[in-house]
């Protein structure tokens, strides 16, 4: 019988993905790259949802739907974020976060 991939593989995968995304947000200066990092973190969460749903409650669908909702929200968030980035670029002629520090003390 074909054995299933164990749950902790999934968790390790999603954890890796999450921290790669977090690292991207923390150390990359380019705003678009940071946005990509955020997307990675969201997808890590999606993997968790789907995995837990599949392994723990195979007859229910909430995890799947939640993953879909997260995807939709992520799309909306990307649209807003990119609009913000475009505006920042127009105003400061840069997309580097280090140069956009006007909101301080």
């Amino acid at each position, binding site marked *: 019988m074909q054995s299933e991939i164990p749950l902790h593989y999934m968790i390790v995968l999603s954890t890796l993905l999450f921290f790669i995304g977090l690292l991207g947000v*923390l150390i990359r200066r380019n705003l678009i790259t940071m946005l990509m990092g955020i997307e990675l973190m969201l997808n890590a969460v999606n993997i968790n949802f789907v995995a837990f749903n599949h392994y723990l409650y195979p007859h229910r669908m909430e995890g799947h739907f939640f993953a879909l909702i997260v995807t939709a929200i992520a799309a909306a968030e990307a649209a807003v974020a990119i609009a913000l980035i475009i505006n920042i670029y127009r105003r400061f002629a840069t997309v580097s976060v280090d140069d956009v520090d006007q909101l301080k003390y």
Partner: protein
Amino acid sequence: MDFSFTLLIILIPLAIFCVLGLFANRVKPAAAGMVGTAGLFIATILSYYAAYNYFSMFHAEEGYLPINAFSILWLTFTDELQIHLGVLLDPLSVLMLVVITTVSLMVHIYSLGYMKGERGFQRYYAFLSLFTFSMLGLVVATNIFQMYIFWELVGLSSYLLIGFYYERPAAVAASKKAFIVTRFADLGFLIGILLLSFNTGTFDFAILTDVAGPVIAQSTGAVFLGLSVTTWAMLLIFIGGAGKSAMFPLHIWLPDAMEGPTPVSALIHAATMVVAGVYLVARLFPIYALSAPDALEVIMYVGSFTSLFAAVIACTQLDIKRVLAYSTLSQIGYMMVALGVSGYGGEAGLGYMASLFHLFTHAFFKALLFLGAGSVIHAVHSNVMNDMGGLRKYMPVTHITFLIACLTIAGIPPLSGFFSKDEILVAAFEHNKIVFAVQWLVAGITAFYMFRLYFNIFWNRTPAFEHTPHESPATMTVPLIFLAAASIFAGFVPFHELVTSDGKSFQTGVHWMIAIPSVLIALAGIGVAALLYYKQNSKAESIAHSLKGFYTAAFRKFYIDEGYLYLTRNIVFAFISRPIAWFDRHVVDAGMDLIGNSTVQVSRSIRKIQSGHIQLYIWFFTSGALLLTLIILYLNSY
């Protein structure tokens, strides 16, 4: 008989005040005056109607019973301690309603002429209505707390009217002085109210003054410095009354209050507000008479001293309104003496009856004197006696009415002042011979200074007038004539059947053994005044010169004002106010500054954290979240 319409007597002036106060600039002056006068006319008619109906409800055995015409619950402290607002009708308050509305109506009519063309004419009428409202609310109060509220309102309207000519520094100073002195006295009143109500658990006059009630029965309660708590409370309440009625040593505001318009002096500072102290003592009289006789003795001595003191000063003053102001002090002193020598109930309550009788007659003749003086001032444009003289030729109506008022206050029969003063002297004679002697002497001094005033205004030399004086318009002379008639005939009101300490009537009449000496000394006073002032001569100056030190002291009002100034500047300011100001500036303010400055310093040093670098914020956030996770894991591992 339903007396709830009496509420209207109070509400009509309030409504007029609101209308005139809010729309002062949109109303024409004449319209404002007419509205005020017409409204007050209705209130006067209503109070006469109320008085007629009330005094026709005499019970043969119980006398006049108090009636609660109207009452609403306003505040509840405990189940027993509640504050109502309402209208209480008893002989005392009905009497006051009649006096106040009558004099106020006369002043309203008179002011139509006197204040014509003044700037702020509408404001003047608004304030007059406010005053009338507050004074009426004061006298019909059902409890001591409501009385206190209106007491303060009266003080406020007095302040506003004294300071009516607010461009004049003297008027502003006088209004502030009046307000501060009476507020200072009201502090005593407030403490007295608190002591009394704490001790008895009620504010209600009906319970407080119930002769058979628990309040008077428990008078021998706790003792402090040899006097019972009730006595202390009543003494403190009397301080409030003394402030309003300008008794020595709180009298200093009243002469200065003459800076206000003359009709205001007639209404507030002669006929109504200044007798509020007498009214207060009379209202609480059963407590004074039955549980605090020591306080009543104090009232007697204060009244007696004030009447003598003020009468002496009145002989030296040159400003005719100030002479009248000191004469008012002296006459209120008479009323206080009469209350002080009175007992409770029946014949013993003669002094109480006499005091209110004198209040009644004094309201008319003193208002008449002030309005007459106003008429003179209106004609010669000066307050000072030296600018007047020989005016009888120019102002016949003012002359005759002023003469009637002078004869009335001097106590010449059969004018009203004779009857009321006679009752007071009889009551004083029965109680305390020394006080009687003082009051008898004051009667003579009163006659002297009133006729000094009269001769100096209407006879004596005729100075060179810039404009020939002329008689005042009808709006001013009609109130004079009405008040003169009231001064003549008010003495025939059978007061001993109407307003007595226990509501029952008793028999009294003119006591010729007392009356004849008092009339004689009054005639002597008039004679001396005629000798000195009828024609221009130097006798008065030479007498003043021979009494140099005493005369100067009296002319300078016995240096009471200077004494107060010294007391406040050199003692209160130097030893209390300045240290407090120093403490405020260097301790309280400095403490606040320290807190503020240290906050600024701390925030300045830590504000670099807010760098604007988003990634730094994410670092903080993530490390915090991680730290929390670790802590939770650590805690859950046990």
